[in-house]
């Protein structure tokens, strides 16, 4: 009897339990779409002038694709220009733009309005129209300001290369088992250090059939990190250092020129 109980418990431990987990794993939906971003970390060092990001990945029966790059939304304060006395253009007052990302880029395989339904676009916040719907503008008194400023906000951000919409830039390649995609784009040096999300949407009949997410980290390193930390954490020392080095440089060149002048006589 004892032997029978031993056999049953061994059967449960060695066969049933592992079998259950193997079965569970096999029944889980297979992640068809994957995404990889190179480089995943961008070092902002002394010679930094932006970077080039390459997004690649594979998926089964890929139709149209959309890639969205953004960071968490935050509030931005900007001054607005207006005419004073009907003649002079001046920075007149402050506007606070609420709930907008610092970086917002959308890339796709084709024209957005042809590959994605309005409902999905709105749900996922793809495209400027939908992004701006959730935005709010307040004036210096805290009252809601005219939405017309959002257009100017977009112009400024596009000029800074922080907001981009580029349609037809993702390249797809058909494969035997899986299709692959590739996108290369310039990462602007104007983008502040921080974490950015890169999300790919696979689309079918205007709706999302699959999605995958990757992220990149932009970090200050080396001398850039040291200088910015010193300016923030040891402001007095930083100010004194800036003065002393400027004085020393000015006087050193003065002495060099003096020596040069003496040599000439």
């Amino acid at each position, binding site marked *: 009897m004892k032997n029978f109980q031993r056999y049953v418990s061994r059967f449960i431990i060695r066969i049933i339990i592992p079998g259950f987990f193997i079965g569970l794993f096999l029944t889980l939906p297979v992640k068809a779409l994957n995404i990889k971003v190179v480089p995943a970390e961008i070092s902002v060092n*002394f010679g930094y002038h932006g970077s080039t990001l390459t997004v690649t990945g594979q998926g089964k029966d890929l139709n149209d694709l959309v890639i969205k790059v953004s960071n968490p939304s935050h509030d931005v304060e900007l001054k607005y220009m207006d005419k004073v006395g009907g003649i002079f253009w001046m920075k007149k007052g402050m506007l606070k733009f609420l709930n907008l990302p610092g970086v917002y880029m959308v890339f796709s395989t084709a024209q957005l309005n042809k590959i994605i339904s309005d409902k999905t676009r709105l749900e996922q916040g793809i495209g400027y129209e939908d992004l701006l719907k959730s935005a709010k503008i307040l004036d210096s008194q805290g009252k809601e300001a005219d939405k017309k400023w959002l257009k100017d906000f977009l112009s400024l951000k596009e000029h800074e290369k922080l907001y981009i919409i580029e349609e037809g830039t993702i390249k797809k390649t058909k494969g035997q088992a899986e299709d692959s995609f590739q996108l290369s784009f310039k990462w602007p040096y104007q983008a502040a250090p921080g974490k950015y999300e890169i999300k790919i949407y696979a689309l079918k009949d205007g709706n999302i059939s699959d999605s995958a997410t990757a992220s990149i980290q932009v970090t200050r390193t080396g001398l*850039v990190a040291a*200088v910015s930390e010193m300016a923030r954490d040891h*402001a007095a020392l*930083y100010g004194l250092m800036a003065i002393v080095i*400027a004085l020393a440089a*000015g006087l050193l*060149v*003065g002495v060099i020129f003096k020596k040069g002048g003496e040599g000439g006589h």
Partner: protein
Amino acid sequence: MYIYLPIALTSVNFLVVTGLGLAVGLLSGLFGVGGGFLMTPLLMMIGIPPTIAAATDANQIVAASASGSFAHWRLGNVDFKMGLFLLVGGFAGGAGGVQLIKFLRAQGGADFLIKMTYVVMLGLVGSFMFIESLHALRKSKKTASQKDTTSHVTEKKKKGLLASLPLQVYFDKSKVTHSAIIPMVLGIFVGVLAAVMGVGGGFLMVPVMIYLLRMPMHVVVGTSLFQILFTCIEVTFLQAYSNHTVDFTLALLLLVGSVFGAQIGTVLGRKLKGDQLKIMLAVIVLAVTVKIVLELVLQPSFMLALSGGH
């Protein structure tokens, strides 16, 4: 070759920035101006945020004016006594000006006042210097003896009122006698304007020394640089400490160009006549005035802008 600026959070071309430093340093050595009224708008044009452009500019002027002051001191062109009186007034005026601009910003409409001060002051100074120098250049073609007699008579008339003031001091380097109150009051006036306009005040101090204090041109340049050096040391420290807006990397790049520019300017200045120097400075000041007027009346390309600056 690009360099990333840790405080401005932007990337700039090394050659463009050092080139700007060289050009403005050249003006500094030539005319005794810090170049703030030129450098700050130029930095903004290459994408530096306004507040950082203004603060960093003060830092690089420390280097340029130290280099220029040293060169002029060697040539015996610095009137330390006069510089000290101007500096005392300038510090007091600068502190008062900072408070004035704080008050105006709180009330709103400070930007309008700043812009209009720029246009009026630059326009007046530039036009006056231009006309006066042109007049002097034309006069110099006539006989020298005739000119000397006329200027002597005018000088005596103008000195009448100023000579009646107390605390008369002889400034041996400038070879003029003034009441100590005059340079201090002028220093306060320039200090207030400099704080309101966010510049070192050299372009205002130079005409003040030439036309009101009647100092010789070569001493004016050296003394102005000496005064600017201390004003900008104060501004750099305050900006770095209170606002964290001094980009030391950018200042280093600018000063690489400006310290050499200041030396070249000093040497070049010795080869030019005083009136030629004045007319050149007048043209530059008027050109900046025209640029500001155009900015004021033409519709800007962007209706939104970062806060700070002018």
